[in-house]
């Protein structure tokens, strides 16, 4: 007997057809019909369970609750549900969620992108965005970290044997110098200085390992390292100097840079800090005077002061102003009259016409302080001293008086031409010798 027949038999029995009638109607299924109907007969005999006594109380509670719902039936629950069941609301929320999710995924995926990758632009954009939203007092630290990230990118490019864009190198070096300048006014114990110095050194190391075939300009490669090295040294120097000295160093970077450049005179002039167009000529001219006699005086003075300036002058530039002049000035007061001896100054007029007046003025300007300084640094007088030796010792001696001579030269400029004629030279150095 199939399910449909059993359903037919059950319906018939429930509608009052007796079991015997059904068995006679379907004799072949009589046994199956009895087996099907017997439990139904038994089920009919089941007495309905009585409700527990508290059922009536339950009904009263139900009706009271219904009254409560009726009292509250209004806009409140309906509005909530209607708002939550709005399809457009859910659709919008879903789209926004997916956008955030995908955006987050793209940002995380772009974190490891390298220059040239499709996601690199997104990476840089997100960096600039996060930098823009960084509090100003934390921006330097973030910028240092970004420089470090650029350094890692360059290292990755090198490791993958991919070309390193020159623009990236320029950017990272410029940014390093920019951060260095921004850190100048900070306290010497500022941890960011050390952080920048470490990043700077890592950057130098990374640039140094860039294969030459990946560089379009090897000279530029060298320049970048030099520039970074100078920057690093300025960080160190400024950390050991007072804030005012440090600012001075930054404002006159060429002077501080000179000693380093000296090692490679040909490169010197090219490596000057790009951001500080410097006034290298004024210092270069002044020192020549002093240096010429002190250094290997034989060739330099007589030959070409114009060519020599770079190497010779620079050391003195630092020393310059104070020390070199001071020793001379100390003697000048007493020897001013002896200036007549310096006929050999034939080179001087060409080398530094401005110096001549300086010498004449120095006594009047710096005598008081100059005398004391000279006592401390008699070495400056020795002709055997190498200019480089003089500088370091003299650089730290800060004297505002130094500026006066440099500023004043313009006035006496016309003098040079006259000096040789009138004073017959002012050969303090000569007198020493």
């Amino acid at each position: 007997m199939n399910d449909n027949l059993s359903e037919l038999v059950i319906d018939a029995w429930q509608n009052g057809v007796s079991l015997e009638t059904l068995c006679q109607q379907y004799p072949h299924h009589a046994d199956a019909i009895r087996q099907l109907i017997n439990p139904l007969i038994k089920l009919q005999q089941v007495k309905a369970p009585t409700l527990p006594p508290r059922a009536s109380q339950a009904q009263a509670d139900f009706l009271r609750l219904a009254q409560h719902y009726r009292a509250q039936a209004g806009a409140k629950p309906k509005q909530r549900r209607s708002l939550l069941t709005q399809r457009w609301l859910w659709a919008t929320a879903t789209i926004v969620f997916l956008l955030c999710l995908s955006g987050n995924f793209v940002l995380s995926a772009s974190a490891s992108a390298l220059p040239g990758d499709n996601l690199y632009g997104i990476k840089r954009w997100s960096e600039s965005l996060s930098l823009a939203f960084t509090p100003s007092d934390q921006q330097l630290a973030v910028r240092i970290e970004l420089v470090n990230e650029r350094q890692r990118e360059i290292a990755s490019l090198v490791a993958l044997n991919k070309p390193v864009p020159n623009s990236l190198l320029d950017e990272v070096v410029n940014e390093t110098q920019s951060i260095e300048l921004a850190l100048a006014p900070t306290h010497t114990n500022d941890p960011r200085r050390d952080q920048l110095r470490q990043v700077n050194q890592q950057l130098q190391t990374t640039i140094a390992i860039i294969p030459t075939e990946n560089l379009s300009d090897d000279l530029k490669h060298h320049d970048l390292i030099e520039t970074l090295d100078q920057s690093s040294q300025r960080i160190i120097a400024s950390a050991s100097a007072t804030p005012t000295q440090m600012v001075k160093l930054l404002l006159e970077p060429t002077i501080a840079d000179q000693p380093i450049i000296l090692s490679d005179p040909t490169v010197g002039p090219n490596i000057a800090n790009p951001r500080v167009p410097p006034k290298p000529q004024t210092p270069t001219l002044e020192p020549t005077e002093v240096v010429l006699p002190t250094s290997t005086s034989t060739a330099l003075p007589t030959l070409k002061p114009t060519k020599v300036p770079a190497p010779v002058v620079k050391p003195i530039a630092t020393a310059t102003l104070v020390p070199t002049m001071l020793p001379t000035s100390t003697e000048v007061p007493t020897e001013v009259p002896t200036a007549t001896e310096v006929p050999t100054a034939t080179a001087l007029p060409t080398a530094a016409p401005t110096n001549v007046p300086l010498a004449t003025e120095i006594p009047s300007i710096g005598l008081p302080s100059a005398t004391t300084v000279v006592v401390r640094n008699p070495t400056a007088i020795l002709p055997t001293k190498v200019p480089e030796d003089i500088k370091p010792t003299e650089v730290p001696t800060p004297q505002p008086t130094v500026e006066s001579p440099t500023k004043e030269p313009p006035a006496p400029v016309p003098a040079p031409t006259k000096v040789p004629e009138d004073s017959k030279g002012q050969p303090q150095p000569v007198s020493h010798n």
Partner: protein
Amino acid sequence: MLVLIESLSDQEIIERAKAYDHAVLQHLYEAYSPALFRYIYYRIGDRETAEDIRADVFIKMLEGLGSFNYQGWSIASWLYRIAHDRVVDHLRRQGRRKQETLVDTVVDPADGPDQQSLASLDHAELYAALQQLTDEQAEVIILRFLQDRSIRDVAQITGRSEGAIKALQHRALNALGRLLRPVGD
């Protein structure tokens, strides 16, 4: 008043119930409360628990009236569906623990056939027999033959097709026939 309500269609009753009409709600409670109690009682086997669940079913009805949309379901089927879900949830929490709280005694199998044929089936024996069936079979037996629900209603309440209910019903009656003593033997 009740007579008038009984003359209303299911949709009209639902609309009034959604407005928390006192008379309609009272009618629904009185009309379906005993049947729901029996259904729950035969499934659970405990009178007090069955009463708790029955009361909870009506509270759920009040909470769900606002979102109930008439889609061909009678309100009775909806109430049984609520009760079905609550029973299934209760049985799941109980871990299919056998209930032994039925107060009526089970018929002694050693009794003679005459006594058995004359004895009415008590609750304990019925419950014991239903426990031998699968949950689906027991539910179909209860709804179809103890609650007098149609095949269609049972299909709606249990979430199955009508064909599946017919097959379940056939197998359940055959199994129950083997478990219960034959009438008139």
